[in-house]
């Protein structure tokens, strides 16, 4: 062994960083903690600066999280994840490519991890492909809920008086273009926003919102009925509203019986 092994610790909670440093000092006196990072971005910067052999990364960190930081580091060091509980699918770790410890820290469990790290440092270099596979899996878990593709607009920012209100799209009844602006009519009132109806049509979830006229988009969940008129015309009636919104001929196909 040419030199003492060195480690980087990253956790956004200072007490936990300190505790980990103290425990490691007790279990592995030769290990030198060269730096402590408060988030993923700092972890990557400090790693590049010190290039330690071992990196302890809290998964849940602000900005760049632990998994994202690990992707930037993993092939160049032994990574150990820190996690509060198995919300990040401990089975991903069980393949053994990446080690992990759970908070609150257990000295016995940490001792096992230290032992494994010592063995790995002595024998095997990092198995890049296996590590990448685990990280891939973890990143997918973290993203869960986001789903593939573009996320739809869920909130509309509208100026009301001197405030900018955030209106959940499910409360919107309809949107109507008003020259440069768009009128948002929702259960709490009306407001003008500085965005075109065309832009909004692209960003709103098509399962919930439909354009029924060049200047009108309605929330389909608020539609009570569609009244057919003569000559290929129709009007839409919305929950709790008296006004009828006309459907122009080119959008009529939306309401053809399915």
């Amino acid at each position, binding site marked *: 062994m040419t030199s003492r092994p060195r480690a980087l610790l990253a956790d*956004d*909670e*200072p*007490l*936990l960083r*300190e*505790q980990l440093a*103290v425990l490691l000092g007790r279990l592995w006196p030769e290990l030198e903690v060269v730096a402590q990072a*408060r*988030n993923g*971005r700092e972890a990557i910067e400090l790693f590049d600066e010190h290039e330690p052999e071992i990196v302890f990364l809290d998964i*849940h960190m*602000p*900005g760049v999280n632990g998994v994202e930081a690990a992707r930037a580091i993993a092939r160049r060091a032994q990574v150990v994840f820190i996690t*509060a*509980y198995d*919300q990040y699918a401990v089975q991903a770790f069980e393949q053994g490519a990446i080690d992990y410890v759970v*908070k*609150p*820290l257990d000295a016995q469990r940490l001792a096992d991890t230290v032992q494994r790290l010592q063995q790995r440092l002595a024998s095997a270099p990092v198995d890049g492909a296996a590590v990448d596979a685990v990280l891939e899996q973890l990143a997918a878990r973290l993203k869960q*809920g986001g789903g593939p593709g573009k*996320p*739809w*607009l*869920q*909130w*509309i*920012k509208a100026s009301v008086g001197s*405030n*900018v*209100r*955030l209106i*959940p799209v*499910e409360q919107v009844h309809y949107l109507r273009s008003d020259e440069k602006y768009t009128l948002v009519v929702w259960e*709490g009132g009306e407001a003008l926003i500085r965005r075109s109806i065309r832009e909004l049509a692209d960003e709103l979830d*098509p*399962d919930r919102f*439909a354009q029924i006229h060049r200047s009108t988009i309605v929330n*389909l969940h608020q*539609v*009570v*009925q*569609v*009244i*057919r*008129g*003569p000559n290929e015309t129709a009007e839409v009636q919305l929950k709790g509203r008296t006004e009828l919104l006309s459907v122009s001929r080119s959008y009529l196909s*939306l*309401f053809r*019986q*399915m």
Partner: protein
Amino acid sequence: MQIPESNVAQRSWRDWFAGLSVERIALVLGLVTLVVAAVNPLFKNTFLELWSRGLLIGLVLMLAYTLAGNWQQTYVARWHVQILAVVLLAPLCAVIEAIVDTHGNIDAVLNDRHRVAGFFWVLFLCLGVGLIATLVALVREREAQANAQALRFALEKETLERQALDAQLRVMTAQIEPHFLLNTLANVQALVETGSARAAPVLRSLIGYLRAALPRLRDSEGTLGSELALARAYLDVMQMRIPDRLQFDIAVPAELEAVRFPSMALLTLVENAVRHGIDPAEQGGRIEIGARREGEGLRVWVGDSGVGLNPSAPPGSGLANLKQRLAAFYGPGARLDLLDGDGRGGRGLRAEVVLPSTERRA
């Protein structure tokens, strides 16, 4: 695109006859029979002759009433159209009846005093009975509508009450987030292991938080004061965990602490501010809790200078639940508004609860 098929109303010929029921036809039959029986002695015609003609006129007028009622237009009130239809059609029916009776020989009618009198009798009966029947029908329809509306109101009220109960149940079974608990305990452990004197106050805050946040089965309402104490316990714990990233300030006039407030409502907003505002921010931020009286009502806010709201972040169930509970607690005038920014031109989010009155709804 999922529009229930039943909502897509194709305006077909059937719609013109909505309301045309066996009951309605039976009513016409009965009324005509009664009227004809009463006036039969005045006419030379047999009962059957009069009855069949009367029935025909009655049915025509009833049909006109139905069609006029189903005419979808926005120019004139519906009942105006219905009365007008009957008033116009009744004389027409009388004239046609006279023509048919004399096989088109109008002179015969005009030259016969009895026939002229007969014609006026028919005209009078058509108009009189037709109008009275129309008015009675309109009044009955309006009553039925009022009943239906009362029923709808009752249903709405019941739905609201059920939602309130659901929301209350959700609060009672609310769970402490395991992530929060384990991370906090990890901190306490770290303090104890290092023999820090701070361990005791942190444990006190945690116990205070747990005591308040664990399911409260009996009381679903607290006061603004007790809610503030809970929020402070939570923020104390969080600040101990991320001291470099969280500052907070609570500025609520002491006289407002006795105001009743739904339990856990304030904590929901504070937890949201930490979890979605401060925690994701590398530099952290500041949380400000405030309240002031506004007339009879109250405005309570929780602002943070964190990352702000991502317009494509799906709204969580916490805010929707809170909104329902506020409505159940204070009535439909209670609002929960989300405002962009920290109020000083910076990033962040501010949640405001606005109550028109602090009286709890009966």
